[in-house]
């Protein structure tokens, strides 16, 4: 067993040395493909973080009719309190809203204070509990409140959040599709590299079969070669993605933070990293498996 493994390793190194250029070309291709995929993932991960940051800041603001009655207000408050997903409720009377508004804009523009009347409605401000389903919860409550008397309008930035969510779904599908196409391409490339590796030393492989080598014995070093290509390729690709991440962070962290407070440039998540490494191993393995199987079935008798 040990000699089997050692032999496989030695043969792999030998194969790679004998076919250095083809090997390097193949590794470069894998690197490029995985870099593309990795950069897509990087964009995706960061947009996702942004989305969930926004998600957290979403509140439901219920604007009230100016002529809302005490009873109607009580009904609304009952609805808020009986909803388990609601974390906190605060009430802004028309006067409070107006004062706040004036404070915010005081000095910046004279016209608001000259208005002479208060144009702002009173509102309830609902914060929701942390929950992956937060947006759904908000939507459900909003649908219920829309029907209530005394409610003038609702606001929770739903339009652009759901638009953004749709975009993320699209991006996910897009990345998966690109990943699928790249994977198929890579499998073909690796299988061709291994095929060249086999054909350049066909006499030796034929001789192995003639002398009674098992298929396992012949396969092992070639599978290993495909695997090594995959692993080196993905390693380099992740290195490049990491460098890009560092570069972005170094140069744009400041401006990012000034736009979205508390948002950091994220690197790929652990599951994504593992997925890429496993994918490369899988691709390397399948690629070499295909060409070896083809060779072994073409040689033995006809």
């Amino acid at each position: 067993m040990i000699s089997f493994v050692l032999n496989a390793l030695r043969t792999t190194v030998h194969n790679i040395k004998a076919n250095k250029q083809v090997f390097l070309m193949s590794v470069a291709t894998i690197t490029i493909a995985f870099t593309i995929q990795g950069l897509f993932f990087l964009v995706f991960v960061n947009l996702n973080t942004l989305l969930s940051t926004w998600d957290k800041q979403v509140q439901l603001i219920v604007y009230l009719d100016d002529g809302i009655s005490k009873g109607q207000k009580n009904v609304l408050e009952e609805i808020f309190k009986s909803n388990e997903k609601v974390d906190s409720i605060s009430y802004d009377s028309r006067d409070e809203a107006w004062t706040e508004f004036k404070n915010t804009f005081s000095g910046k523009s004279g016209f608001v204070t000259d208005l002479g009347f208060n144009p702002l409605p009173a509102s309830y401000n609902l914060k929701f509990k942390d929950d992956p389903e937060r947006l759904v919860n908000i939507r459900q409550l909003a649908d219920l409140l829309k029907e209530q008397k005394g409610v003038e309008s609702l606001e929770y930035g739903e339009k652009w959040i759901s638009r953004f969510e749709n975009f993320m779904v699209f991006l996910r599908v897009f990345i998966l599709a690109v990943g699928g196409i790249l994977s198929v391409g890579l499998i073909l490339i690796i299988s061709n590299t291994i095929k060249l590796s086999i054909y350049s030393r066909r006499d030796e492989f034929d001789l192995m079969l003639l002398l009674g080598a098992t298929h396992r014995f012949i396969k092992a070093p070639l599978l290993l070669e495909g695997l090594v290509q995959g692993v080196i390729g993905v390693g380099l690709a992740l290195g490049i993605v990491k460098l890009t991440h560092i570069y972005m962070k170094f140069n744009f962290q400041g401006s990012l933070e000034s736009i979205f407070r508390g948002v950091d440039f994220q690197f790929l998540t652990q599951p994504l990293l593992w997925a890429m490494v496993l994918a490369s191993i899988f691709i390397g393995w399948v690629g070499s498996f295909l060409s070896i199987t083809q060779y072994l079935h073409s040689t033995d008798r006809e």
Partner: protein
Amino acid sequence: MIQAFNLHKSYGGVAPALMDVSFTIQDGEFVFLTGQSGAGKTTLFKILFGWESVDRGQVIVDRINVGKLNESNLYTLRRKIGVVFQDYKLLPKKTVFENVAFAQQIIGADRKTIRFKTWDALKNVGLTTKKDSYPPQLSGGEQQRVAIARALVNDPQLILADEPTGNLDPEVSLEILELFEKMNQQGKTVIMATHSLEMLRARDHRLLILNRGRMVQS
């Protein structure tokens, strides 16, 4: 050791390479296989170690029905057989030593065994002084002896030697013949394909004769 029934093999040419070939070889026999060039000797060998399939007929080698093997278990048959190929099939980029050791590596022998057995096999054919040369640097006869050493290194029960003395002068040929006879005395079954009348006359071994694909004496 070998039972062949009505073997028929055609490569698609005008005449088939083998027609209705039947014969039996007992364990421990020494047999000459002869016939003109193109008679089908190499083809018969290829069928015995499973490199070519037959169109009709059956062949059993050491209780294995060769036609029933598939690609992934053919190796069980091939490990019983040591073949000296007519064209040697040496790897030009490996040294003499590595070429012989190759047969050992392939069956998964450990390093120590490989070194010991390879040395032993080279000693048997008198090539220890050339162990670090590469095949293209050797004479035809020396290459032939490397091929013989490789066929013997795994201690096979059956030896198929395809013109193993084709390139050797009579004196060395006789030495090689004696080497195979020594193996035979150790209990191995030997089939030696040869054109050499001298060889055939020198010994009184059983003779199989092929003529244009037919077994005319067995």
